[in-house]
């Protein structure tokens, strides 16, 4: 989230799209309803009418996988009707920047496409700069090559009728949503978006969010109270897991993963440290060397020296262009290229798409270590349906783990608030926290390497691994302090001297010379200099009255509760919205939230800085050349769609996605054998694959068995009555489940034809309870987003047959 949960209450218009917030983030609705009490409008856009829709002022449906068409229509509406926030668009976005004249867009493809590689050469997706490297701008926004005009031209094709024919949303509903939401494009109104996996889990997932980001920038809704682009994250600590880099493309704190071709630290830093000639740009990522060196110091301690590149060569590198994500991993495993697997708190046998492929892949392993509080379909795959356990060679180790209330540590919520929690009870039996388990395994690995050596033992032997308390147990406070970082020598910065061994109280103090350590620069400042844990704070003061609660827990970065908050004020530092002044420049100081940097407002030509400090040019990107499939989001059909032709262009699918072509990666597009759109989701009552909740009798009582929700109209076609058993089939598998015939799904009119959609939860698996049914992910395809490889769980094709 750019904002945070409590801030939802400050909104005037809440768009919930790609999310079923009421069911999957019940606490968020506490704040949605507070906003509603103040007169806010709540809009829910979703293929299905859910418990969220029931609470909304307005619900309309769209076919799964058509969000860019829906939102592209909103961009056109905003531009055509002058609903954008002029001052903000001019000053805080790259609307006025001039784009390279060789940049083109033609019938679904941007310039530079290589169909063989399914990749773009992005050399024309650039902003023109003058001789000093500063972007060339047209403040009148009239130049046909400026971003604003190109944006306008791009979305001119997204008229109401075209959008309606793609999404299936009635034209009058589109107009109603566009009108309601774009009414926030004024100084004293705020609109927010709550989204979740309903946007990310598409082959165009990242671009779904980009499209909304463009809308929020046009309306001036980013950096303000009640606004923002807000991802509701699933697990209580899923934000923490990405912050700490549980993904292949990043190191902790969103530093980039190094590739094999960056053989030295210098090459790595040169590649990933952005430069800017814009005089008023803070270009915060210019600090990349400080954060990278401090990270290496946290990992390798005294062994990391300037002479040995701070042990940069010890970090594993991906091959250039290598896909090291989840789908690629299972593909390799299926093709016998991976021998061992460690699974912690997951159930990929039910949670990963094309689960039949995954379950077969497990059989190619020599060993699997599974860390969990309960058994699930993953470690028990060898006794699953249709498996002859005598033929399975995989050795499985099940390690009992402590549940969340049985361990101490930090939890980072969607709003970046890092809250410290304490252990409520000891774990049962031999169970240990996941931290303890990982700690012990690595300690043992080090011991073995020390004894037996190996091909390249240095990275393991030199790794700093000193996180145990006096009893030899893994110490979460020691880890959190290492993540925050220490002064490794006495350091004088400005007037102040910091002593060796003290915590670094802000990332602004981190050094590139090896004198500081920090396991994650974004978390630097979670401890004070004297080692007080700010994440454990529980003070309920709210000096601004805006719900920022600055002394409740701690939030990254530097306890800033709403990021890009300098965009909430004009060039003089005056709040755009005097009713909700998040920041104000008063008597030469900032008052309110922690500002995005200490500099004075923009009118100070010498010291003032632009608000989007993480962007090299200091402004936000309406034109976003960092994306894999284009600087402007474009509608493409999901990999499996009911249509053989994209109604928007000649390009059916996202041209930059990876296509898996193995024998088990079957796809059926516009295939009469699989005529219905299907989407998957979760319910309030179960957690993900149900691996932890299906063992809870009060929850299985409430949601006992797998079901498919289908419209009355489709039920009639299939000859199915409510509550009868059906078989849902895709080219990859089939699932038997109960038909829930409902008025909450309705047929769509798409390109003149009637298209039916159904939906299933992925909460079930064969292990327990025995009659609950198997995973919906037996049906989903092996395909991911072009930027992130997040699987397309949300849109694929099935058939439904009565059993």
């Amino acid at each position, binding site marked *: 989230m750019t904002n945070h949960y409590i801030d939802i209450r400050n909104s005037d218009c809440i768009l919930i799209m790609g999310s079923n917030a*009421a*069911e999957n983030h*019940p*606490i968020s*609705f*506490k704040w949605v*309803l507070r906003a509603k009490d103040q007169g806010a409008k709540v809009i829910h856009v979703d293929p299905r*009418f*859910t*418990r*969220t*829709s*029931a*609470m909304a002022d307005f*619900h309309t449906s769209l076919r799964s996988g058509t969000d860019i068409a829906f939102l592209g229509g909103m961009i056109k509406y905003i531009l055509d009707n002058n609903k954008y926030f002029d001052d903000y668009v001019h000053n805080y976005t790259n609307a006025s920047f001039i784009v390279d004249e060789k940049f083109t867009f033609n019938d679904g493809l941007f310039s530079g496409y290589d169909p063989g590689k399914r990749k773009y050469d992005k050399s024309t997706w650039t902003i023109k700069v003058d001789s000093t490297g500063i972007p060339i701008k047209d403040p009148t926004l009239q130049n046909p090559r400026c971003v604003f005009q190109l944006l306008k031209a791009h979305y001119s094709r997204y008229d109401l009728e075209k959008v309606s024919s793609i999404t299936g949303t009635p034209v009058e509903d589109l107009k109603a949503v566009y009108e309601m939401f774009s009414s926030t494009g004024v100084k004293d109104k705020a609109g927010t978006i709550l989204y979740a996996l309903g946007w990310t889990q598409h082959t165009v997932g990242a671009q779904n969010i980009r499209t909304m980001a463009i809308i929020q920038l046009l309306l001036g809704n980013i950096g303000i109270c009640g606004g923002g682009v807000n991802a509701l994250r699933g697990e209580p600590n899923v934000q923490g897991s990405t912050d700490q880099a549980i993904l292949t493309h990043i190191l902790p704190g969103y530093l980039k993963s190094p590739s094999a071709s960056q053989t030295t630290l210098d090459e790595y830093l040169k590649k990933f440290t952005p430069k800017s000639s814009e005089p008023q740009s803070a270009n915060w990522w210019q600090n990349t060397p400080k954060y990278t060196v401090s990270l290496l110091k946290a990992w390798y301690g005294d062994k990391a020296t300037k002479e040995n590149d701070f042990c940069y060569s010890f970090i594993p590198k991906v091959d250039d262009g290598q896909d090291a994500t989840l789908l690629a991993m299972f593909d390799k495993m299926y093709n016998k290229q991976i021998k061992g697997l460690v699974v912690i708190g997951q159930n990929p046998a039910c949670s990963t798409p094309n689960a039949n492929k995954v379950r077969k892949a497990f059989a190619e392993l020599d060993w699997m270590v599974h860390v969990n509080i309960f058994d699930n379909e993953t470690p028990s795959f060898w006794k699953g349906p249709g498996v002859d356990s005598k033929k399975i060679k995989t050795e499985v180790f099940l390690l009992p783990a402590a549940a969340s209330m049985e361990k101490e540590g930090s939890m980072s919520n969607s709003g970046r608030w890092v809250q410290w929690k304490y252990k409520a009870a000891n774990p049962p039996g031999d169970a240990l926290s996941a931290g303890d388990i990982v700690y012990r395994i690595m300690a043992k690995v080090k011991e073995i390497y020390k004894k037996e050596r190996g091909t390249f033992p240095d990275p393991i032997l030199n790794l700093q691994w000193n996180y145990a308390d006096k009893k030899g147990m893994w110490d979460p406070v020691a880890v959190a302090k290492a993540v925050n970082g220490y002064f490794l020598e006495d350091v004088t910065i400005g007037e102040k001297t910091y002593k060796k061994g003290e915590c670094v109280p802000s990332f602004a103090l981190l050094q590139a010379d090896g004198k500081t350590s920090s396991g994650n620069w974004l978390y630097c400042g979670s401890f004070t200099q004297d080692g007080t844990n700010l994440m454990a704070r529980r003070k309920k003061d709210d000096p601004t009255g805006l719900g920022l609660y600055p002394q409740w827990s701690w939030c990254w970065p530097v306890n800033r509760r709403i990021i890009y908050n300098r965009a909430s004020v004009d060039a003089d530092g005056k709040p755009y919205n005097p009713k909700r002044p998040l920041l104000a420049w008063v008597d030469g100081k900032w008052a309110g939230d922690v500002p995005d940097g200490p500099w004075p407002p923009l009118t100070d030509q010498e010291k003032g800085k632009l608000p989007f400090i993480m962007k090299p040019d200091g402004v936000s990107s309406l034109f976003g050349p960092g994306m894999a499939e284009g600087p402007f989001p474009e509608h493409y059909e999901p990999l499996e769609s009911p249509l053989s032709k994209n109604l928007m262009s000649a390009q059916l699918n996202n041209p930059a996605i990876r296509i898996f072509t193995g024998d088990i990666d079957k796809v059926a597009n516009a295939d009469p054998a699989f005529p219905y759109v299907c989407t998957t989701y979760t319910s*309030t*009552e179960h957690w993900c694959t149900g691996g932890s909740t299906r063992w*809870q*009798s*009060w*929850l*299985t*009582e*409430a*949601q*006992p*068995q*797998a*079901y498919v929700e289908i419209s009355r109209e489709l039920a009639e076609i299939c000859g199915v009555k*409510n*509550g*009868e058993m059906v078989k849902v089939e895709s080219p990859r598998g089939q699932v038997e*489940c*109960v*038909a*829930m*015939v*409902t*008025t*909450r799904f*309705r047929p769509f009119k798409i390109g003149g034809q009637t298209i039916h959609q159904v939906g299933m939860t992925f909460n079930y698996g064969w292990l327990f309870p025995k009659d609950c049914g198997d995973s919906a992910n037996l049906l989903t395809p092996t395909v991911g987003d072009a930027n992130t490889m997040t699987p397309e769980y949300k849109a694929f094709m099935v058939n439904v047959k009565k059993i």
Partner: protein
Amino acid sequence: MSNGKSILVDTSRCTACRGCQVACKQWNELPGTKTKQVGTYQNPQDLSSETWKLVRFAEGIKDNGKPFWYFFSDQCRHCLVPPCLDTIQGYTDGGALQDQATGAVLFTPKSKEAPFDEVRSSCPYNIPRKDEKTGVLKKCTLCLDRISNGRPPACVLSCPTGALVFGERDEILQMVDKRVEALKITYPKAKAIDADQVRVIYIVTDDPRKYHEHAAA
């Protein structure tokens, strides 16, 4: 004496998360029963001696062609003058009682001596259920054990949105009036159900029968 306690059930704030249904079972140590998916989110299908709080789901199409999905977190209303109490007491003295301080209506083990069908049909809201093993009648206790010790009922404590509110009856009645008035601007049919007769007062925004057959007396 004060006017006792009340619970407000504001269905316009209920997201049907069923935290209340589960919290009731947790506090009262009631088991999760074996259920089947029969084509609805509602489960168990009905109240029972082991389910005293049940979120009911009702769906359909509104006049404007849009779907509706109404949630009704059903439980004993703890009537000010409870007909079930009269019926049980008529057969067995001490089979039911009304707590003087709070107004909570309770069934005791002696309730097994009262004819169940008659007790059930005496209830305008179809709440009492019989434990088939012991014959004892069962239902919500208003968490008398909790509220007598200054704690809110388990269901109220679990509610994330403020759809359930517990407090002094007089204060709850004021809240009810205020909330109904506010809701009427958007929902002309908004009303409180039988507020002058029951302690558990439901606010609905549409015809109560669209929520549940026995929503109103």
